[in-house]
């Protein structure tokens, strides 16, 4: 983090009261591939598309949806390498929490500490803000499904359903029309896939999208396998 010559922050206020670095970071997010999340009554689903530039790319070992604790996970839109730094920090902080309290770090606490890290990078010497927005999904001990968005500024919001990245405006409108308060997890997964398809160029299959699900029944965050995703897609057809 910034050497001694850069003891001043690079994120400074403009005359109009804006932090331009953060605005530009949000632009980077808006150029990233779409990611969305839906919180149902009995679980949360997050999904993103995984289109690669060429057919030669081997994408199986690189994932965008990542588990942070047993019962929570992240997905992002924006600059991938920045995201991986945040995933590492979040995982470490969740383990430190467990070491201190012997309890899984609650989703809200995870969000607050990650947001705090992102805010630090807007007010420290010689660093730039993270070029990602995160969607955090998880279920705490109390069984309530939770979905949060964290922005490059460090601001965080709780959502019932939301989308970030390319085409997020259309995706959000689509979700607003389809979302219902009593939606169950299975419906939520279908809706998520339909929403992704809206902005998808070409054919969607189990290998070019990623879906992460945490269900109230076992409280575990898991990624769906390509076969499982394909099953859901076939059902939708």
């Amino acid at each position: 983090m910034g050497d001694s010559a850069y003891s001043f922050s690079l994120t400074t206020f403009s005359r109009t009261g804006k932090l331009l670095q953060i605005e530009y970071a949000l632009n980077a997010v808006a150029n990233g591939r779409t990611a969305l999340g839906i919180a149902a009554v009995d679980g949360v689903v997050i999904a993103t598309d995984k289109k690669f530039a060429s057919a030669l790319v081997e994408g199986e070992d690189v994932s965008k949806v990542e588990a942070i604790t047993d019962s929570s996970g992240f997905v992002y839109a924006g600059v991938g390498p920045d995201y991986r730094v945040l995933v590492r920090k979040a995982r470490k902080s969740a383990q430190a929490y467990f070491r201190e309290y012997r309890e899984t770090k609650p989703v809200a606490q995870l969000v607050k500490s990650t947001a705090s890290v992102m805010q630090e990078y807007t007010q420290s010497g010689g660093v730039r803000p993270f070029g990602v927005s995160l969607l955090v999904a998880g279920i705490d001990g109390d069984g309530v499904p939770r979905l949060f968005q964290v922005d490059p500024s460090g601001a965080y919001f709780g959502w019932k359903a939301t989308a970030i990245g390319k085409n997020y405006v259309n995706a959000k409108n689509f979700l607003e029309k389809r979302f219902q308060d009593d939606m169950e997890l299975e419906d939520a997964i279908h809706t998520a896939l339909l929403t992704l398809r809206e902005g998808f160029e070409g054919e969607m299959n189990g290998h070019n999208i990623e879906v992460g699900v945490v269900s109230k029944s076992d409280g575990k965050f898991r990624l769906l396998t390509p076969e499982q995703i394909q099953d859901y897609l076939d059902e939708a057809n």
Partner: protein
Amino acid sequence: SITFFELTALHNIIFSSCHRHRHRHIHHNFLRVSKKPQHKGNYHSTLLLPTAPLSPHNSPPTQTHRKQYYHNRKMSILEYNGAAVIAMAGKDCVGIASDNRLGIQYQTVAMDFKKVFKMNDTLFVGLAGLATDVQTLDQLLRFRMNLYELREERTMTPQVFTNLLSNILYEKRFGPYFAEPVVAGLDEKGSPYLATMDLIGAIETTKDFVVSGTCDGNLYGMCETLYKPDLGKEELFETLAQALLASVDRDALSGWGGVVHIITKEGVMSRELKGRQD
């Protein structure tokens, strides 16, 4: 019994302030444990300890500034102030009790020294050991708990509290707090929770009773004898009171009455105990 750690710490405190004489024909009222074993099989230390004069024909002590009594026992840091803490589980209730004495070695200084602290309506912690660490840990625990409750917007469960306390103690692994705590509370479902740990945070949870202090041997004996599972709150109070008072009566360093708290879902009942004031 004394641990190696306490021995080295005590060694540093006492040995550094001692005059060292070699080959002088002056009777010191010290027991010098020599290289040749005088008692077979005993543990040897390199400490110089003040002891009772070895015979009535000793010359008067050359160093006359003795503010403490002569004694043969080594005093560990955990015994410096004296304490007795006990906690027991009953039917949907827990009780925790402690004595009231604060001493400086054999001199009693206070008869109303609190060793049991309320963390919230369903969680109490009792701390036995060096009084300064007892008070400091109480402050630290309240600090950490308050921050947790503000951040997480929920009350801390006894299990989490115990792990937090263990963590705080282990952080000071090589310069520990000289206190051995006892945690008593009701978990979210209302069932009793008891735990104890040593001064560096090794946790032990039990269903029946936990004890700590200078007379922990006595307390264990009384608990094993008097304890019955599923006692109601009045019976639990009686059992705790009897176990505590009988144990501290055989310990010079604890006593001067006591205080008992019985915790149930409905609330906390606290009572002072009248015991031997000696």
